[in-house]
């Protein structure tokens, strides 16, 4: 990575993917908790 720009393109893309992936994980996790612990 030679420039801040290239670095940010890389890091931001990964961060977005992690964040949106987490939303799916969170929804599943919440549903799981609700079932066993109303």
């Amino acid at each position, binding site marked *: 990575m030679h420039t801040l*720009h290239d670095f940010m*393109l890389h890091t*931001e*893309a990964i961060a*977005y993917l992690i964040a949106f992936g987490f*939303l799916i994980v969170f929804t599943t996790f919440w549903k799981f908790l609700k079932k066993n612990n109303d």
Partner: protein
Amino acid sequence: MTENRRTEYSLRQWITDKIFLGMTIGEYIKRSITPFNIVAGLILIAGLYASIIRFIKGLGPSTNLSDTYPWGLWIVDLLNYVAFGATGYTIVTAVHLLGLKEYRPIVRPAILIGFLGYLFVGISLLYDIGRPLRLPYPLFVSQGTTSVMFEVALCVFLYLTVLFLEFLPAPAEWLGLKKLRGWLAKITLALSVFGLTLSTLHQSSLGAYFLIAPGKLHPLWYSPYIPVFFFVSSVIAGLAMIIFVSMLSHRVFSSQGEHYDMAPTTPQPPLLRGIKRDNNFDKLTIGLGKAASITLLSYFCIKWLGVAHGNHWGLLKTPLGYWFLVEVLVFVLLPCFLYAWGVRQENATIVRFTSMFTIIGIMVNRINVTLVAFNWNAEVRYFPSWMEFAVSFTFITLIILIFRWIANRMAILYEHPEYKDAH
């Protein structure tokens, strides 16, 4: 039971009932010739002409945009649609996340305003960007993840989907699609959470656009806090807009008030006349006014934090400094006090008037950031062309017409009798 009724209908009957509100085409057309509709029609004709020029001849012949001013009136419109579209997430949050069930009557109009606002954000973009057919590129072809505009595109796209799904119960009820309606009720909470999350992001990002231009935005408006300013002012915009629109709808669609327990116990008052305090609708208005007042006060404070952070006190003595003071004192502090006065006096009329004033104030702020503080030291100034105005007014007219069309047919301003407990 609705399914049986539908099969008994002929298509013609269905169209007459659902589309033409039970009238023959002749009656419907006759009823449609009103002064408002004539003016609207003229605006649409001007807008159509301007649109043809824009798409056949390009941005140069149709706008006054230049290399010095690449963003003009249509971008300001966009910022305003997003700000006033905040009716959606503010009321949805109040009702579905904070449990303030008394505001349920205005959830649907709030969502519809938001949906139409964001829909026209997309349409405005099709007009403004040089290659409208490439609008999907940032999301689906080449993701410029360092760009605030990429993030806005992503969040607005997702949020428009959320708004559409939040709006969908109304047409589902209208068309008798019970299963769809049931499924939509189940995902309400998820949509509310997602909607507020996305709104926090893109409302603030619209301000963040300007972070990359410190040299071009006047120091009194440029601040690392711009994203916060835009987000907080979007709450204000949303509250003011729902107060304003519900005032108008209550008057225009007064016959629908009978379906809902929101119907006034006193005879329907004329626009802007003071009314008795035990009117449910007024109570809601005053409650919203309280929220608006508090938010305006907070916004007032953080604007000064921005000045302090940059140590720009000296700039207040310049011409643009005076204009900053006008924006902050007249269009932020004054409505804050007016709302507070209306709340204390339990006078919904004051709250409604202040809302109209606040709406102007938000527009002033967006214009200030985009066109006044931006390139404030440039030699040339920009003023929109008549075609830019024509398109602008056409969009507003279309939003009003579509809102009216939907509100006349679907359960927006009242609760559909067959789905009373479907929430």
